[in-house]
């Protein structure tokens, strides 16, 4: 009589379907417990009346969702979207050339990639504090500018939209560089040679061949920057002071200081729904895009 383990393995071996499920089970279980269930709890909270001492009471209400459509919160939502969008664009403009150079530099490629990833070795919080030291009135940036004689008075850099944007871009730039790097690295060099031999000058070659073929990386990078930027709160909190609140700060506040969990949950869901709608709209648009364009 073969052992239990033996028999289980034989059974799995004969059933590819069961085997696939068995392999999926651990990860799937993890996602159900730590992703799906919390989301469902949040959904439930967002639909329940607020308890007197925080928490919730039983019942169903849409008041938290309705409350979000207050001009005050809509202003925060608008700011969050605009800032995230601007941050994404700046990351793209700064990140694409970096990825391009890394791909081109055969010898230094690994070192440069290492440098791109290096910031992740320290916590984001510590790095954000470092940004404070850099940008505050008596910080390094101001003292350099003063010493160079470019300014007479220290500039107010910290707690301005600029400092928040700087923090966002700094924090998310690697997420833009890496996917673009990955798609550029796959680019077949003979395609570039073909373009050149067909008469494309460097500019045309870039816009007609390189850029379109690295578009998947650009899109992945933009999503990887835009979505976390929407939800970020640390940067706005530490570098923007209380003035530059983003949705992330609002949600965080509701869950901590304000102890209004239902409203925090509702705000989260609204942002989530907006992002999801945006991504789906994009995918739909991409599917409908004709695969080929005729020569008119």
């Amino acid at each position, binding site marked *: 009589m073969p052992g239990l383990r033996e028999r289980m393995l034989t059974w799995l071996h004969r059933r590819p379907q069961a085997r696939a499920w068995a392999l999926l089970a651990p990860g799937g279980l993890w996602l159900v417990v730590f992703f799906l269930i919390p989301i469902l709890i949040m959904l439930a909270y967002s639909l329940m009346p607020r308890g007197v001492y925080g928490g919730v009471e039983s019942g169903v209400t849409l008041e938290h969702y309705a409350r979000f459509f207050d001009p005050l919160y809509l202003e925060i939502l608008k700011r969050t979207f605009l800032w995230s969008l601007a941050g994404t664009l700046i990351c793209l403009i700064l990140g694409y050339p970096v990825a391009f150079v890394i791909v081109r530099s055969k010898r230094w490629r690994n070192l440069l990639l290492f440098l791109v990833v290096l910031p992740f070795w320290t916590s984001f919080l510590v790095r954000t504090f470092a940004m404070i030291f850099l940008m505050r009135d008596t910080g390094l940036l101001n003292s350099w500018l003063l010493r160079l004689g470019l300014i007479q008075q220290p500039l107010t850099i910290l707690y301005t939209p600029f400092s928040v944007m700087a923090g966002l871009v700094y924090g998310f730039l690697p997420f833009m560089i890496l996917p673009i790097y990955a798609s550029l690295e796959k680019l077949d060099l*003979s*395609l570039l*040679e073909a373009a*050149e*031999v*067909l008469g*494309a000058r460097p500019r045309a070659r870039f816009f007609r061949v390189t850029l379109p073929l690295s578009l998947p990386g650009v899109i992945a990078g933009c999503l990887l920057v835009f979505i976390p930027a929407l939800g970020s709160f640390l940067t706005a909190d530490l570098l923007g002071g209380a003035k530059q609140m983003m949705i992330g700060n609002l949600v965080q506040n509701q869950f901590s200081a304000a102890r209004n969990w239902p409203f925090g949950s509702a705000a989260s869901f609204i942002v989530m729904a907006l992002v999801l709608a945006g991504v789906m709209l994009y995918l739909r648009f991409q599917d409908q895009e004709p695969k*080929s364009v*005729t020569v*008119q």
Partner: protein
Amino acid sequence: MTHSVAPAPVVQLVHVCKSFGFIKAVDDVSLDIYPGEFFSLLGPSGCGKTTTLRLLAGFEVPDAGQVRLLGETVNHKRPYERQISMVFQNYALFPHLSVARNVAFGLEQRKTPRATIEERVERALEMVRLEPDVFAQRMPGQLSGGQRQRVALARALVLEPAILLLDEPLGAIDLKLRKEMQLELKSLNKELGTTFIYVTHDQEEALTMSDRIAVMDVGRVAQLGTPAEIYENPRTAFVAEFIGQSNFFEGQASKQESGEWLIGRPGEGAFKVPQHAALTEGAHVRIAVRPEWMDVWRPEAVPPGENAVIGSIRDIIYLGETMHVIVAVPGLGDVTVAVRNEGQLMKPLSWKAGDRAAVAWLPEDCQVLEG
């Protein structure tokens, strides 16, 4: 080939050198290519043929020497500044553009009017026998290897270049289609009058299509000539071995009173060879003889006046069109003789392994090799 009233060459390489690190990829190559020629660069991998082509295309800059296209030195000109077009080994079709857009690419770069582009794309596709209505809107990913090859060809030809570079364009397609494409390329070359410069490692392909062939070895041109010159008069052992098959013999050259040259080794037989510049008294000389120029005879029946060696048949190999009779000759090794197959079922060869046999050939069929 002599060009007594030769037109000006369209392509000239003048003592061109190109090294990568310590490797001399192209080592002092000089050659002229004339308008409308089908010119092949042939050689094993690493012989410098692809680097030579890339020097012509402008992807590489020569370390020394001159690359001249249409009479103009273009050493430092970028590919888009040269009057060339190219078909790549892996086709290099733009995966994000349709067949029509791929073919139109070069015309668009040249700011050709749209109406003209459409018409020329259509004509180019027809030229490579791709039905425009069927293929124009397809994406490269939806095509077979042979179809991609045709699109790549159309994309290069639509520009009506003076010079078309082809980098092993048929390497990745199957034998039957390859044969077909060989003939099509050759007829396109003649029809359009475009100069084709064709890189290949396939000697049969080069012999089939080329007007002239430059056989390359370790960065140098080992021999340059028409297919017949290269095949029937290989200059070096490398060429004799790389193009077709050859049996090699070597020995000391000596001049007879009759004026004939003999090549042989002391104590062994000697072979009569035709007059050749490399022959001087006492020189060590190698000769090559093609298997199909030899015959197998009974040792006592060798025709008078022919060179002959005697051994025993080691093996007979059936190749379809021909039979290879391999004769082991003591002191010389194996000699391969190609015999026409007249049908082994109806008229079988009268030889079998183990038979004593003589291999004989005419003195003029000896190719005296240099170096």
